[in-house]
């Protein structure tokens, strides 16, 4: 089974590369064949990827969330899977390039550095941890997708204001649609992050003896959650539209990334077991 896992580990980034290329070519050249077949590429990629993740779970007897590079692989899957669902629901097909790119990056990093022989701390085999990490990862996928659509919104907004009617103008859906996609992804991401935080707060004190509420990662996550929560609340309360909401979402994303990088590298936290 290890050899199968090794082969799949090598194949999957190439599948993402092929899917990304299909989306990219269609974005630039409006290929009549690719407009439908690229979705099939994405489906096959996701199918093989989930098979790989399940196989890994069976082989190592724990969900693939026990080291950084396993998490990268789950993140790659969840970003593309979320996009796949969005594409099916909205039939907006030409934004995939910008989202699958993230999956390609995550999976490439995962495939390059993932190892099979390492010791998994007993605490990481807990099922509640699985739920905590998976909901957090899906939450991060949501806010990543939200940020991508937000960025596309801003680019299209600027193009429209500056009378630039190029590729983005021709390929993107309307500003209103991009805003909706960005906000809906953000909402899903926010709900999942909330679930992750709740599970974490309930379970972490019992699982980690050195748990403390002043933990930098916990504080960082709570700040992010408050920022997003305030943004969402003000959107509903003040009926905010467009650029302001998008800028808020992008600010939240940058803050999230900073928080993740800082707490994973610099800060001393009980979360740093990877």
């Amino acid at each position, binding site marked *: 089974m290890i050899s199968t896992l090794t082969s799949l580990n090598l194949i999957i980034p190439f599948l993402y590369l092929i899917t990304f290329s299909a989306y990219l070519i269609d974005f630039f050249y409006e290929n009549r064949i690719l407009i439908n077949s690229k979705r099939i590429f994405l489906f096959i990629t996701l199918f093989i990827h989930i098979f790989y993740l399940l196989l890994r779970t069976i082989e190592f007897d724990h969900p693939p969330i026990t080291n950084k590079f396993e998490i990268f692989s789950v993140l790659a899957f969840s970003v593309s899977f979320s996009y796949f669902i969005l594409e099916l629901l909205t039939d907006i097909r030409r934004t995939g390039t910008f989202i699958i790119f993230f999956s390609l990056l995550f999976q490439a990093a995962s495939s390059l550095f993932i190892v099979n022989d390492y010791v998994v701390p007993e605490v990481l085999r807990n099922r509640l941890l699985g739920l905590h990490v998976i909901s957090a990862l899906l939450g991060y996928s949501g806010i990543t997708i939200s940020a991508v659509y937000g960025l596309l919104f801003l680019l299209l907004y600027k193009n429209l204001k500056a009378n630039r009617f190029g590729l983005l103008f021709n390929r993107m859906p309307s*500003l209103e649609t991009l805003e909706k996609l960005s906000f809906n992804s953000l909402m899903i991401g926010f709900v999942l992050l909330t679930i992750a935080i709740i599970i974490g707060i309930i379970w972490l004190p019992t699982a980690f003896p050195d748990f403390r509420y002043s933990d930098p990662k916990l504080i960082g996550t709570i700040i992010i959650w408050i920022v997003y929560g305030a943004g969402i609340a003000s959107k509903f309360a*003040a*009926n905010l*539209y467009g650029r302001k909401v998008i800028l808020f979402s992008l600010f939240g994303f940058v803050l999230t990334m900073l928080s993740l990088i800082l707490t994973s590298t610099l800060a001393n936290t009980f979360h740093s077991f990877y």
Partner: protein
Amino acid sequence: MNLIGISINHKTAPIEIREALHLNRDEIIQLIGKLKEDTFSEGVVISTCNRTEIFVFPKYYSLNIDTAVNTLLNLKPVAGIKKEYFNKFFSCGAVKHLFTVSSGIDSLIVGDSQILGQVKEAFEISEDLNFTGTISKRIFDHSVKVGKRAIKETAIGEGAVTVSYAAVQVVEKIFANLEKKSALVIGAGETAELAAIHLHDKGVGKITITNRTQSKAESLAEKVNGAVIPFTHFKEYIHNFDIIISATSANETILGFEDIRNEMKKRKGNPLVIMDIAVPRDFDPEVKKLDNVFYHDMDSLKIIVDQNIQKRKSEIPKVEEIILEELVNFFSWYNTLEVVPTIKSIREFFDEIRNDELEKIKHKIKDEDFSKIEDMTRRMIGRLLHNPTVKLRELAESGNNIQDITTNTIILKELFGLDKERNNGSDKDMNDEK
């Protein structure tokens, strides 16, 4: 095939000449009557604001192409008309020209799909007047197919190519659901009307018209199921609209920066799209600096129009490929028709020989014997010609092996000297046969 094509269009003649030669339905009917008199057996007359086209089959092979031009000019005499204003086509060239016209690549606005409907309508007029036949029907079926394939398989008809449609295209890039949006059209002239109709066609929820002359606004509002607000008060209602299309003939701006800034406060930042398609402009262009105000004037919309025209032009090679494919399809069918007159000719040729020989012995033998010889020779010729007739028919019906059909018919014609025998009006006979 002796199809003749005559064309006067935007590429060959100035607009005054095209206008002078434009034919309405009644004039087309009249012209077809004249063409019938002037030795044409079937054909079609297409006339739009940018072109007049005549496609006709002469009854006889030796015919001057100018006859069709003269018939047209006799019906519609035009001062200053020159020979070079007319493009003339024959046979395959005429079919190709018709296909090119139907595809829209020969139109003033490349990819114009209206021409396809006009071609269909022209053919229907000819059909009603019994001025069509099997071949012309087949040619026009293929030309309609070319037009449909061009629209379906290429991007020749995609993108806005008029400023008012480009304005609507930009609106669609800002709002997702136009049903929930309201639009104000300022002005009721031709441009404003076109824009209002485009908005209506795109399903904009509420359209309101305002114009200095109230009656014109009411008339346009009726066309688009819209409402009217008085021109003197319209500024008070600006904040209620998501889209404003302005196309007045005012000499100075009617809405300034401060007006829109104040209205945007009332709109709580909800986006406002302003399409200023008036010359001179109706809005202060500085309004584009306001957040969530999308201001576009003629110049910016012209960028979209020019881009789309360029894009359509780049699709022409794909359409030309479709034209070529349909030409091949049509002539594959047409070439199979060659065998029918060949079979008929060869039978006539054998019968003539038989009759000649029978005539020679008719008075030399008894009637009873003559009758037996007559039967015997008929059966003999029947049996001799059975195999080649069946084989040729089979080839023709299969529609394949065009080369074989042509080769076989040529060999037969050469061997029996059929072309010499049937030199006079062979094409006329062929048409009659078909």
